[in-house]
């Protein structure tokens, strides 16, 4: 398998609310190789965003990571102190979110926001730049600011924003949706991260703009040799962008495999159902085969296999035992008693 960049082992993130414990992520394990693009797909509430936030250790109260390990180049992120974590967050692992308008600060210019990220990590992710900046004499500080500004312009150019010198001085509201997402990518990539987590990066964008952003991300990925975890509900996007796909359902991983494994040889009934519910282009007027029922509430999960209440293949055993994730072919794992047949 070679050396892994990120290994998540038995991660559990629970939310403690008045109505009970919501097991948003309940014991998932997966890994990401350097330079690899992994897609995490699933419906709303399946735990894909919580997984991403757990890796960044950005889970908000009342959520808590209650167990497991997140190994980044062999170092467990969950044992780090908050100060040390800040070095990784943004420096080695960067994240972009769905809605670029709410993640950019409306009262700072776009340039200031990119420069802030660069200064914070001093451009190489090793030094605490902001502290360093305070200790410098005025001349050195100015030189460093200029360097950061030049680097920001370079980043803006890199993500395809024209006239970067001028646009650096503009505010987020002066940018269109696609351009804002480009700015977010510039902020995220300014410190040369080796892992980029993209949480629904194109969901709020129109198809033609989505195509532009995906092309850009693919290009940057090969230029910078960076691994990407792409979280989305759109199977078409992962099909075009990723090497491997992780399918999640109600806080668990139900199937892992290469893009071809998942899309053309799916084994888990949920994956099959999900693929069947996607309307195919130009294929008309057939009844779409939908999955009956709805996703279970996370604080009242069914026993045994979490999918058995909506599954047409379910047996008595499915309601009692939880199927483990087992490898059926090289690199293709499924958690189902019936699906492996």
């Amino acid at each position, binding site marked *: 398998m070679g050396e892994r960049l990120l290994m998540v082992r038995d991660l559990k993130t629970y939310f403690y609310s008045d109505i009970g414990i919501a097991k948003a992520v309940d014991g998932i394990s997966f890994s990401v190789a350097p330079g690899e693009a992994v897609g995490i797909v699933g419906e709303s509430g399946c735990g894909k965003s919580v997984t991403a936030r757990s890796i960044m250790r950005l889970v908000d109260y009342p959520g808590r990571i209650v167990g497991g390990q997140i190994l980044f180049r062999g170092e467990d992120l969950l044992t780090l102190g908050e100060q040390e974590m800040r070095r990784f967050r943004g420096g080695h692992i960067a994240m972009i979110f769905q809605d670029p308008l709410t993640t950019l600060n409306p009262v700072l210019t776009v340039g200031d926001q990119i420069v802030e990220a660069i200064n914070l990590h001093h451009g190489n992710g090793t030094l605490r730049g902001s502290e360093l900046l305070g200790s410098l004499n005025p001349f050195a500080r100015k030189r460093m600011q200029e360097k950061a500004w030049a680097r920001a312009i370079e980043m803006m150019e890199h993500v395809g924003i024209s006239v970067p010198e001028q646009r650096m001085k503009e505010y987020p509201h002066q940018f269109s949706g696609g351009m804002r997402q480009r700015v977010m990518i510039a902020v995220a990539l300014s410190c040369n991260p080796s892992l980029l987590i993209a949480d629904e990066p194109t969901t709020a964008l129109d*198809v033609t703009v989505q195509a532009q952003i*995906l092309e850009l991300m693919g290009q940057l990925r090969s230029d910078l040799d960076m691994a990407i975890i792409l979280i989305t509900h759109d199977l078409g996007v992962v*099909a*075009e962008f990723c090497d491997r796909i992780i399918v999640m359902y109600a806080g668990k991983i139900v199937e892992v495999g290469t893009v071809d494994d998942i899309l053309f040889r799916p084994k888990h009934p949920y994956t099959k159902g999900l693929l069947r519910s996607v*309307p*195919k*282009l*130009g294929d*008309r007027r057939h009844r779409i085969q939908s999955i009956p029922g*709805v996703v279970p509430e996370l604080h009242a999960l069914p026993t045994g296999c979490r999918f058995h209440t909506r599954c047409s293949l379910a047996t008595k055993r499915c309601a009692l035992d939880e199927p483990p994730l087992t490898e059926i072919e090289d690199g293709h794992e499924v958690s189902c008693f019936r699906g492996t047949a």
Partner: protein
Amino acid sequence: MDRPLVQVRDLKVHFPMKRSFKERLRKKTPTMLYAVDGVNLDIYPGETLGLVGESGCGKSTLARAILRLCEPTSGQVLFEGKDICQLPAKEMRAQRKEMQLIFQDPYASLNPRRTVEEIVGLPLALHGTPPGQVRSRVKALLKRVGLHESHVDRFPHQFSGGQRQRIVIARALAVKPRFIIADEAVSALDVSIQAQIINLLQELQQDFNLTYLFITHDLSVVSYVSDRIAVMYLGQIVELAETQRLFDRPMHPYTKALLSAIPRVDKRTRERIILRGSVPTPINPPPGCRFYSRCFLPQKSPYCLIPPRLRQVGEDHYVACHYAVAEPPLLERGVG
């Protein structure tokens, strides 16, 4: 073919932009936003016409103007030959019984303080159902859209997104309309739920002989439900064709780019046209062909400054591009 149920004739909806205090003092004429700018459409009884386009292209404004929820600047909307834009308020209210709207966000379109009975029952009461019969009618409607009779006394927050959209559909069906506009009706739902709602809409169409105008930005969904598809760009229809034809032989460069931009599960290797730039604003749109600034055709020329009109290039296929060439009719028809 039958007589169209809804005819849209050269419809224009322009919005004046806000003027500053200084501009108002100087009585400057306001800048206009050309949301819908000269749209012609015929919608036939029993069909589903899909309307696609990117955000800000005027799809929703067009829908609202067809239902007269916003007053068109000029043009006509004929419902069975009757111009509804000229109807007095009282007749218009009776007319609304025939046409209903389903919105995108099932969370925002249901009043959180009303029970399902009140929500679905209101249109019934308004259009003259005796009070004693409302409850039983509501129950029947709920059953028809796949909910349970016992849901009648619940509040919207007790339902999931898919169930809420079913309530919205029940409310639209309550007055037995003939024409329903679904404005991004399934866009906010998860794939598996989306499939359930699409199936429901299709069943209802057959049972009640409904006519749909199905607005969405999702081309896969629209290809599934529509008989014909209209593609909109910056307030104008750029291409209109029978669904299969549009996907097999798109003629307008914008349609080609749009189709190639969709990420697909089934076919991964294909050449993709990536448009440069973003949609220009509908305030001061470019003269002539609106797509000129992003067009990738090698033939594009100064002739494009002459606005291309929607013209027929094949059976049931209309394109607004000077460079779309009419194809000879299919062979089998000639042999026939």
